[in-house]
């Protein structure tokens, strides 16, 4: 029983193909990492699922509902939330307003307030600065806010695009701790783009390796780290160097 199903999709920008013949299944409650070099099409894949980019071929389903062709706001209603690359915080809105943007699709007003209280409990700094402009937060705080904001739509599946981008390793640890705790508490499904396979291996989960718009490898993140397929994806055919950065 697959929760998210991506069937043979293609994404192109004008004539430039970004994703090709891509098929992927993500089970309910699963944690899946998408890794691969820059330009592999990882962000495009997430954008296609969220409706931010159109697919030129194939179909995408969530729990049997067809997502293909629906606008992003309709896909959000079906339970998919996104933390985009670069986070895209609303800098001119306050911290709390950022959290509330995504609550328009909910009818459970009380649960909304509880969720906000819970986010403030988990990230006290966000609570302290709830009335401050979100643009003034540090990168790490913005990442936490973006994750909190994604939670506020009450999603089943959260997609996070490169959460470690531009953050100190310590903060990245914190971000992943948060994501994993949330996943356990809420039974979320996570689809995470993470360039560092070491990081993915440490957090644990399934890993999908992309290159040139296609999936070129797939397996347990821990097993994948030192596999030839990975090195090949990053460095062409010669696997002598291995990725070590976190």
């Amino acid at each position: 029983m697959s929760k998210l199903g991506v069937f043979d999709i293609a994404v192109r920008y004008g004539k430039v193909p970004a994703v090709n013949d891509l098929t992927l299944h993500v089970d309910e409650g699963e944690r899946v990492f998408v890794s691969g070099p820059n330009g592999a099409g990882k962000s495009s894949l997430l954008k296609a699922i969220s409706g931010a980019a159109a697919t030129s071929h194939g179909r995408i389903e969530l729990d049997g509902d067809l997502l293909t062709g629906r606008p992003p706001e309709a896909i959000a209603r079906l339970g998919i939330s996104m933390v985009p690359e670069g986070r895209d915080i609303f800098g001119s809105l306050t911290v709390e307003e950022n959290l509330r943007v995504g609550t328009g699709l909910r009818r459970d007003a009380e649960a909304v307030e509880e969720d906000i209280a819970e986010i403030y409990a988990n990230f006290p700094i966000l609570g302290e600065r709830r009335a401050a402009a979100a643009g003034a937060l540090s990168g790490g705080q913005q990442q936490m806010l973006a994750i909190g904001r994604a939670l506020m739509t009450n999603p089943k599946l959260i997609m996070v695009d490169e959460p470690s981008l531009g953050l100190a390793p310590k903060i990245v640890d914190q971000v992943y701790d948060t994501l994993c705790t949330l996943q356990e508490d809420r039974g979320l499904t996570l689809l995470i783009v993470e360039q560092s396979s070491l990081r993915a291996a440490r957090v644990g989960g399934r890993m999908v390796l992309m290159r040139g718009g296609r999936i070129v490898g797939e397996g347990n993140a821990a097993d994948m780290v030192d596999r030839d397929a990975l090195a090949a994806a990053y460095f062409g055919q010669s696997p002598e160097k291995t990725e070590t950065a976190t």
Partner: protein
Amino acid sequence: MSNLAQLFFDAASLGGLYAMAALGIALIFGVMKLVNFAHGEYIAFCVFALIVPSTDAVAVMFLGKAPALILIPVILGLGAAIAVASEYVVFRHLRKADPVAMMIASFALGFVIRNALLATYGGRPKAVSLWPGLNTPVDIAGASVPLLQLIVILSTLLVVTGLALLLKKSRIGLEMRAAAENFTMARLLGVRANRVITGAFALSGALAAAVALIMVTQTGVADVRMGGQIMLVAFIATVLGGLGSLPGAVAAGFLVGIVSVVLQAWLPLEARPFRDAFLYTLVIVCLLVRPQGLFVPASAKPRV
């Protein structure tokens, strides 16, 4: 002293009118990155809605006969309706198009509305007397001020605070501000694009109607061209304020109004016919010094 007070009321009421017109443009630009050049024609449309359609030289009041309590909401609603309808008929289909294509479509739409008005009402300006009582002067601080000027200043304050409250406190206001900053991100969070855009057009059209009511009462004339003139000033004010910035549009609208009243009063008599040339020279200087707009913090990233 009395001269200064007079100047103050002139400047505040003209500035308020410009501010409202500029707000109407900035609202749409904020959410859609569209400079809606049909905005002036929404204003003209609302003015002509007051009189009976005919090409006769003498205007016969139509909606204009209704008592203010009915007339005002009806005209505001009409303004909102024509703006929303134009979004539905024209702009909705161009959302994914180039901003330039949308802008040209707005020119074309304005042209269509203007010519429809010309065909229905004829080209000659008509005398329209809406609420003539409002032009009776009242004495304040030694200045003799038409009641209308006070009403204009008051209603500007009312409209601006009302709009600020709506944007700050209401659900649709929050969605509009989020969408103005990053439309895709807002949609990814479930914000309905259609709802936000329709809301922005409705507000913008209602603002056009408010401007129409003020202009027609002030000038006593219904003229197809009146929308175009104020649209130009309002557009300049929105650019000056920083395209898409609502507080910037209000501030720049007031500034343009104040400067043109001051120039009118203080320029040597021979130079007064060229007041607008002086005004626009100042505008160009402002834009050369601060191309991002006067009232946008220098640190803000460019919106266009």
